[in-house]
């Protein structure tokens, strides 16, 4: 990971927020519950940060923090995507 200009990160954040607002506004009202579990699984992309903390050559305590964070994110990814699919299946079969 190379250090990026903070300004360009802010730029990405603002644009992503606008895209998010635009896309989420159009989500079917029927699907707000699966939407929440889906966005939750997606934001568990924080897993990439945890992998680096848990798996790189760091002191033991740091790696423990990283492993717990990795576990938490991974739980969200697995349960988030699976339950979203389970709910959406119920809407689709009609």
């Amino acid at each position: 990971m190379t250090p990026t200009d903070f300004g360009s990160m802010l730029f990405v954040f603002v644009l992503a927020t606008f895209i998010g607002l635009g896309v989420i506004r159009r989500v079917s009202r029927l699907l707000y519950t699966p939407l929440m579990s889906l966005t939750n699984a997606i934001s568990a992309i924080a897993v990439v940060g945890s992998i680096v903390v848990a798996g790189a050559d760091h002191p033991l305590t740091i790696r423990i923090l990283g492993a717990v964070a990795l576990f938490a994110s991974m739980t969200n990814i697995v349960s988030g995507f699976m339950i979203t699919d389970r709910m959406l299946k119920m809407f689709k079969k009609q």
Partner: protein
Amino acid sequence: MHLIGELSAVLATALFIFALYWMNDPKTARHGVIAGVVGMTVAVLATWIQPEIIHHGWVVGAIAAGFIVGVPLSRVPLTAVPQRTALSHAFGGLAAGLVGTAEYFLWRGGAATAQMTHFRMSALAAEVILGFLTFTGSLMAAGKLQEVRWIPQRPVTYPGQNFVNIGVLAIAIGLGVAVVLQPGAPWAQQAFLAIAALALIFGVLLIIPIGGADMPTVISILNAYAGLSAVAMGFVLDSKLLVTAGALDGSSGLILSIIMCRAMNRSFTNVLFGAFGRAQPAALAAGEQKVWKQETVEGAAQLLDQARNVVVIPGYGMAVAQAQHKVRELYDALTKRGVTVKFAIHPVAGRMPGHMNVLLAEANIPYSALVEMDEINPEMPRTDVALVLGANDVVNPAARYNKGTPIYGMPIIDADKAKTVLAVKRSKNPGFAGIDNELYVQDNTWMLFGDAKAVLADLVKQFGGGGIH
């Protein structure tokens, strides 16, 4: 290696945006899950193959543990989805808080690659505060929703509560500013840990004064916080992918919060600091004590059978009783007899956004029969029977005019305007918000007391073998 990382991040970002885009229609929504899974897998693998990752056993172990806990969590009954959602916000917050803490100590230990600028340090402080407050706040919310015994269900309030809450947050932020200005000072390490502790405490304090009826809003707000903590983590780690995914999550939480607040005619601050559901100041004027009229199951079945159109208004009571499948049976019985049955969905019915839709979809009720509040209300005066099923505050006419009630101004489903109202209610006590409902004592309202599932089963029986032909 670096190029692979960048390209996979771009790919994952695009897939995540598509995933949300496909949620605009139930027909395409499942593509979204596939897009999300592919995006996630690409991002994880691209990170994992970086040469700095050497402790593969740790990564494998934590991922395996995530599967072991995650798979059962995805199989909870749909009535428990609000708790699961709150729990997943807690996990998201925990991950952000822990990674933030690890990054800070790595930097202090001199091992971090990136420079600790004021900007990055601010992002780090924000990540830790948001992450840890989301963690304990969401755990509390999940506990309340699960009705864990030692977590009080009713709002807990005490004098000066808002002062204490804001004070705790202010101290955390103040310490944050100090650490940002002097990240390497000898006291900064203790200050950093104090920030984390205060954020953990603040999360608990924030949720204890909140009652069940406010849960849809609170879950949405916690969703936004979880997203923002991921954004802050992205700033710390210089990851555009994380910033984007966090921003998508955060904006989703924000939009849902706004919709929920609007559906209750309340502001964010009012939900978070207003302590809903305290003892109500004398709602019914003295001498106006009306009583409800109870109806038998046979009588109710007659009423439904003679109706041309019926609007069912489901609420949390339906979820608690797991009555959605019985609702489906009643829907089938009535539809077979030529009765038009629709379902009126209030945005805050249940304990999270969209809760009722998911439960009814589970019972195979076609989603074309699910109608939003704004669309159904003009039809209510032409409705023969409004069947209120474990809903309470969302049909309380007092919201229209009684300034003394906490739900004043909240848009409601006009059940009271239907020709006849049948209300199924678990007990004779007021609902979760602790407010009397005058719908129940209206002249055209008939009460059916009992567990929603049992009452519906009896009703369906009337249509099946014995009662009505």
